[in-house]
């Protein structure tokens, strides 16, 4: 099949599946079959695109010239490929998980859930394959809007307020800061193309580079750099599959992905280092890493704790971009994939606990691990990968990020990274420890609780095995990340 058609198909298929999901609303089994088939097809397509890309095929397609000189354009490049690959694979796994979760939870409005989920995934793939900053921004905003109904899914006052914070912060930052930054870039350069080495060098007065870069970094609210991180904890009112795939992988990674894209292809790493654009921004990233970890320790609600952990881990990737050295970019790009697999495992486990034991607070989870060994085992593996211990994939990205700080000579930031890893231990490991060794306050409740539904378990086992597997065989992601970092 034609390569161009493949990209379009990957983006369009999830949108097309919405029609099927809505039409089959009355037959849940058929409806879920549509989701699963589409997810499997998208997964297969993305892997095919990857193999074609690996063979060196150049894949780009212009759809329409929206404004003079500005096309809606799709293009496959290493970083986008990496992102798309993760999303494609994890959507399939999450779909398996959602079926068990949503049915176990007896959730109303499941049709709407699956339909909006598919749209969100389509937009994420659009973001990943966006061939210029204009297209990227279009999909970025569509992603924000399409995830709103998912966050507000429960329809309660709490969900409504959480969703309001979510959409409010994301729209405010993207319209108020990011759009302005894009327009300034366009006014200065007359182009929004992604080009190796950037388009701003030589056109923008270096004195203004720092300000413009800050507009981008804070304007990309999905990267959750403090003080614009509040939307992520607020989004935790969503059903767990949404938190797992969208707010640990798709949406937040769309944010840091955009940061990396802007850094590499709009500014160009040389321009950033020579103009000192990121000199003071790195402290915002460093601050985010530490503060979010500290806040995570104070959270008793498991999903909230994981949310703050995500904020902190996103800080790693943003820091990788800001340092703009080879190693840090490699580490940042790699962390997109490693963190994705680990964090989705943690959320899967959190959701499984919620469905099986109806518990969301960590202080209630004493002794649960003994009746839900697979869930808590998966949680343990995910935690270790996030902390960055061998033999799990998370080690690699942290390693290269640390190397990046050394390369840039930022010893203080190296300390921040190491300190944060210690904090990771302090807020993640108590969960499995309490689960396996803690004594339940009320011994009788534990006996009535069983393991989570099978589909949830399957999903968790796959992702936790992936964490292990990626330690020994990180090659696909490593190569893509390497190409990304090399493209400077």
């Amino acid at each position, binding site marked *: 099949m034609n390569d161009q058609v493949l990209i379009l198909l990957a983006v369009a298929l999830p949108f097309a599946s919405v029609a099927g999901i809505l039409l089959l609303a009355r037959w849940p089994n058929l409806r879920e079959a549509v989701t699963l088939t589409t997810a499997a097809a998208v997964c297969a397509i993305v892997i095919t695109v990857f193999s074609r890309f690996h063979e060196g095929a150049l894949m780009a397609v212009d759809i*329409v*010239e*929206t*404004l*003079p000189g500005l096309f*809606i354009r799709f293009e496959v490049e290493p970083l986008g490929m990496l992102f798309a690959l993760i999303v494609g694979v994890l959507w399939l796994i999450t779909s398996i998980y959602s079926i068990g979760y949503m049915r176990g939870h007896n959730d109303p409005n499941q049709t709407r859930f699956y339909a909006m989920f598919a749209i969100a995934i389509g937009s994420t793939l659009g973001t990943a394959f966006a061939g210029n900053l204009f297209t990227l*921004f*279009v999909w970025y*905003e*569509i992603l924000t*809007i399409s995830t709103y109904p998912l966050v*507000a899914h429960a*329809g309660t*006052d709490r969900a*409504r307020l959480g969703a*309001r914070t979510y*959409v*409010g912060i994301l*729209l*405010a930052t993207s*319209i*108020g800061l990011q*759009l*302005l930054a894009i*327009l*300034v870039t*366009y*006014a200065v350069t007359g182009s929004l193309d992604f080009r190796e080495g950037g388009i701003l060098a030589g056109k923008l007065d270096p004195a203004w580079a720092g300000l413009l870069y800050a507009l981008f970094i804070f304007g990309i609210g999905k990267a959750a750099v403090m003080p614009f991180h509040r939307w992520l904890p607020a989004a935790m009112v969503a059903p767990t599959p949404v938190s797992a795939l969208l707010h640990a992988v798709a949406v937040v990674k769309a944010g840091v992905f955009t940061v990396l894209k802007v850094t590499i292809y709009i500014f160009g790493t040389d321009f950033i280092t020579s103009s000192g654009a990121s000199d003071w921004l790195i402290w915002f990233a460093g601050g985010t890493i530490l503060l979010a970890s500290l806040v995570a320790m104070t959270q008793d609600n498991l999903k909230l704790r994981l949310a703050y952990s995500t904020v902190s881990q996103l800080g790693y990737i943003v820091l990788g971009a800001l340092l703009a050295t080879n190693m840090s970019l490699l580490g940042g790009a790699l962390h997109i994939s490693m963190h994705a697999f680990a964090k989705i495992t943690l959320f899967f486990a959190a959701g499984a606990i919620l469905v099986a034991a109806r518990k969301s607070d960590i202080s209630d989870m004493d002794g649960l691990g003994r009746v839900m060994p697979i869930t808590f085992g998966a949680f343990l593996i995910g935690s270790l990968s996030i902390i960055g211990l061998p033999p799990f994939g998370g080690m690699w990205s942290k390693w290269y990020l640390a190397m990046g700080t050394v390369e840039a000579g930022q010893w203080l930031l190296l300390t921040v990274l190491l300190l944060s890893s210690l904090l990771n231990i302090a807020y993640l490991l108590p969960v499995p420890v309490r689960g396996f060794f803690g004594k339940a306050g009320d011994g009788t409740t534990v006996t009535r609780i069983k393991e989570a539904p099978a589909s949830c378990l399957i999903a968790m086992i796959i992702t936790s095995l992936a964490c292990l597997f990626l330690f020994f065989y990180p090659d696909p992601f490593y190569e893509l990340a390497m190409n990304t970092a090399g493209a400077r």
Partner: protein
Amino acid sequence: MIEQNLSLLLVVLPLLAAPVTAILPQGKAPWLLTLITTWLCLILASWQLSLVTDGSVISYALGGWAPPWGIEYRIDAMNALVALLISGIAAITLPYALHTVEKEIPRHQLSLFYAVFLLCLVGLLGIAQTGDVFNLFVFLEISSLSSYVLIAMGEQRRALTAAFQYLIMGSIGATFLLIGIGLLFVETGTLNMLDLHERLQPIMHHRTVHTGFAFIVVGIALKLALFPLHLWLPNAYKYSPSAISVFLAATATKVAVYIMLRMVFTVFSTDFVRATPTDHIFLLLGVFGVILASIAAIYQTDMKRLLAYSSIAQISYMVLGMGLASALGVTATLVHVFNHALMKGALFMAAGALVYRVGSSQFKKLDGLGRHMPWTFAAIFIAGLSLIGIPGTAGFISKWYLVLAAIEHQSWLIALVILLGSLLTVVYMWKLVELLFFRPITDPALTVTEAPAWLLLPMWTLIIANIYFGINTELTVGVAETAVNLLGIAAIHE
């Protein structure tokens, strides 16, 4: 034959149809004739636009009297775009009107209603076509008088006060315009726009010319509801019949914006605007308009009034574009004239659909309706996104050009105000969305079903247009750029 008289036909056709409609028997017949007329107008307007997109100009001498002595209809890309917009909105409002009008207007007034509607269309199309300032005034009066009548036909008795308020304000505006035109005529002895432009050049510094200009600008500002002369608008939109709020919101103020562009940039010139404080006054009023009207919209408790205040804010955007007085700025204004008609048309149609089902646009009646009317709700949501300026919708294109023009002008404050306006739009649109979807329905006994297809189809046509013109801007931006080229706006001096 048709092609040569195209420009005149566009005005004469509804003018001839109006009296015929008035004498038709009550029932569906007046509606049908109006429908056919508006669709014919749409075809003619599209034809006309296709003739001038390449930048050419059609000059039509009325009655064979050569300009500048006779009345000239002078069609360039800008006229044709506005004419297309008016006839397009009219053509799409008519199917929508069938049921809503039957419900809101007493049966014995139906033929009168459609006759007046056609007259209003004549007035608006005439304004778009003519190249003669006095002729323009006449058409403005035709459209204004007929719209007072249309508003007064609203169901509630308060429609009468709303119409009266508009009548007073509109008449003051029209009088000011006439005084201004009179002063220019005294100075130059001509009424033809192009001729006026040439004859005014050597006497631009005359006090009389300045006075005339001031009268004209204030007069038009009243008609386009420029902040702070907007007070007539919210009630006029709220109390008028649903189909009329759609039609007026999408066309009347846009036509006034067109008159302003013509007067300021064709009759006078960019240099005149920059030499006088005009551009700064436009910018100042635009900034205040965007912010204050958006804030006012947030505090409304009635959907139609909310939309009306939002219209005032959006008009302020157009005025900002004029105030920037650059090619990019005026392009943004023209594009926004077109796009805003699409989104406000859709939103007022949706509001009308809600009113059709529950009889009121008060917030307390609308609680939870979104869940029972999913298509209407989805339309409000998407049109709202367009109003905010989310990429992928028409509204984004307008905002894009407007901010770009502000950056080119190096007015950072203006750029920030435009974006801030978008954020305020998020606030009031989200208020509407949450209320329609999350509040429990007030009266549990009330069973609300989706609006009928006659209402949904036109609404969704506009919604699809909102998305289409957000992705493919060949028509809007292309024509606007051609039009701005013809206006001959000088480049910004550094």
